[in-house]
């Protein structure tokens, strides 16, 4: 009887998707709900939680360190978007053009950095951006007669190190995304444009860019998400969650500091909820702005 029930065509699909439902409820919905709940409480491990309404949020609004973290994450996100969208797109177009020599070789070698873990890549960049005169970046500056720079002690230079790390790791991956997008553009469009006497630039702006839009939207979406949630890169560069004057502190870093290092779980949960809200708002705005929701008309 039970067997016939489980084997029926009506019940089988639920059996198939059951693992997802369980994981979703236990490891996503429950933590998410408890995170939202915790953000209205004062929670310390081992003590009874207390409801304190919007106190955590009120405190957060006056928390200068939190705003420092938000600023850092936002600057990082914007810089990665500015570098890691247009350049990989241009490179993909060049790789795809018939003027390209060594296509496969460049495609693979650009992808190499993505194979390294953040820990290894972060270690390499920490040592490359070391403040000694002999470290890689400073010795290159030396060739041009420039003085060594203490990269990880200044705000602007700290951003440079972070963005350099991101650029190194993700350029190749984003090129692959754009290449897979380019594959779906029919060659006839370009042939027709050539017959009409369009220049290469016109072909790029009138055919390539508009038709790459779905890929671009995808890459922008994941970059916003990854930029705002960045943490381990900073943790590796500064070898921990503490940087001079918090120049490397990110939103998730602050969440980690409050929740794990200071055992301030309720306050950390509020940081998490704010991060979720920021990510959702920016992404929805971006999708609305790029006309993603009108696609079905």
């Amino acid at each position, binding site marked *: 009887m039970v067997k016939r029930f489980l084997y029926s065509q009506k019940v*089988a*699909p*639920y059996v*198939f*998707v059951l*693992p*997802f439902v369980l*994981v*979703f409820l*236990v*490891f*996503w919905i*429950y933590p*998410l709900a*408890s995170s939202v709940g915790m953000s209205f409480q004062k929670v310390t491990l081992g003590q009874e939680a207390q409801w304190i309404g919007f106190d955590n949020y009120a405190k957060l609004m006056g928390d200068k360190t939190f705003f420092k973290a938000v600023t850092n994450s936002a600057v990082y996100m914007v810089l990665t978007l500015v570098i890691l969208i247009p350049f990989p797109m241009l*490179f993909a177009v*060049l*790789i795809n053009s018939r003027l*390209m*020599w060594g296509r496969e070789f*460049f495609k693979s*070698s650009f992808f*190499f950095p993505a194979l*390294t*873990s*953040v820990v*290894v*890549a972060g*270690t*390499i960049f920490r*040592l*490359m951006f070391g403040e*000694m005169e*002999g*470290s*890689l970046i*400073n*010795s290159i500056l030396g060739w041009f007669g420039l003085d060594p720079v203490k990269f990880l002690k200044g705000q602007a230079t700290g951003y440079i190190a972070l963005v350099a790390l991101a650029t*190194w790791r993700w*350029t190749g991956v984003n090129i*692959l*995304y754009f*290449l*897979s*997008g380019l594959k779906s553009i029919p060659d006839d469009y370009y042939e027709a444009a050539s017959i009409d006497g369009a220049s290469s630039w016109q072909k790029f702006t009138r055919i390539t860019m508009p038709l790459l839009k779905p*890929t671009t939207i995808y890459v922008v979406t994941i970059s916003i*998400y990854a930029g705002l*949630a960045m943490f*381990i890169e900073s943790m590796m560069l500064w070898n921990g969650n503490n940087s001079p004057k918090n120049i490397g502190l990110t939103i*998730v870093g602050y*969440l*980690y500091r409050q*929740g*794990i290092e200071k055992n301030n*779980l309720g306050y*950390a*949960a509020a940081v998490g909820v704010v991060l979720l809200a920021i*990510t*959702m708002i920016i*992404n929805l705005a971006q999708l609305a702005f790029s006309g993603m929701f009108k696609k079905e008309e």
Partner: protein
Amino acid sequence: MKKELAAKIAIFALFAVICLLILIPFYAVTIASFKPGEDLIRYGLNLRFDVSAMSLDNFAYLFTGDHAYFKWFFNSLLLTVVQVALTLIVSATVAYGFAAYDFKGKNMLFVCVLLIMMVPFEILLLPLYRLIYDMGLMNSYSAIILPGVASAATIFFFRQYLSGVPKEIIAAGRVDGATEYGIYARLILPVMKPSFAAMAILNGMNSWNNFLWPFMVLSDDNKYTLPIGLKTLLTPYGNNYDLLIVGSFFSIIPIFILFVAFQKYFIDGMTAGAVKG
């Protein structure tokens, strides 16, 4: 024609320069693994190629020294293999449920799959940490495997792949009297095989390189994975830099070999999400 050749040379030169910039860190870490660790403290990572200062000491220490590197290495290997196997089979099963049937609540559930892909995992760190603590799973590999076992990105990819598999296979199976599960196990899974490679690579790479969550839940250094172990070597005193640099170098090698052998699957796996926009 001349103009075309000039353009070809210009593009090639541009790419050669970028390629050089991208490969410099690899070059630096490779030569550093032949130099004494104290050089790193004194000079940082650099490009100096000086044979007289180079030796195989670090490699000798890596393979014969008294340290936990290979313990971490095999922990990572074990965790990666188990995690990938479980994630693939569970996600493929779920994806089949979504692809093959129409059932009540299907669309809503699929929106949940998409939702998971949009919420930064990082905001769940603390409540998840508490949950794992309450479940008594701290310091276990289950704590790392379970939350991701029904991977949204993997389900999404498999469902896309299955939408290209003819439904007639399922109908034919039913006519032959196979059960719903028999159809999946004996008829569909073999057809799905090609799509497993790309997802194995994607999940394998994520698992091999995964850091933050394992770092939070594993406290016993016997259970550390490679990234966590390497991170512990990065001390302010720099007393472990010999092992750190040669260990970092050595940890890249297996993935490089896999990449060279299975490049197509790496690329398919990495770009899986972007295909349909």
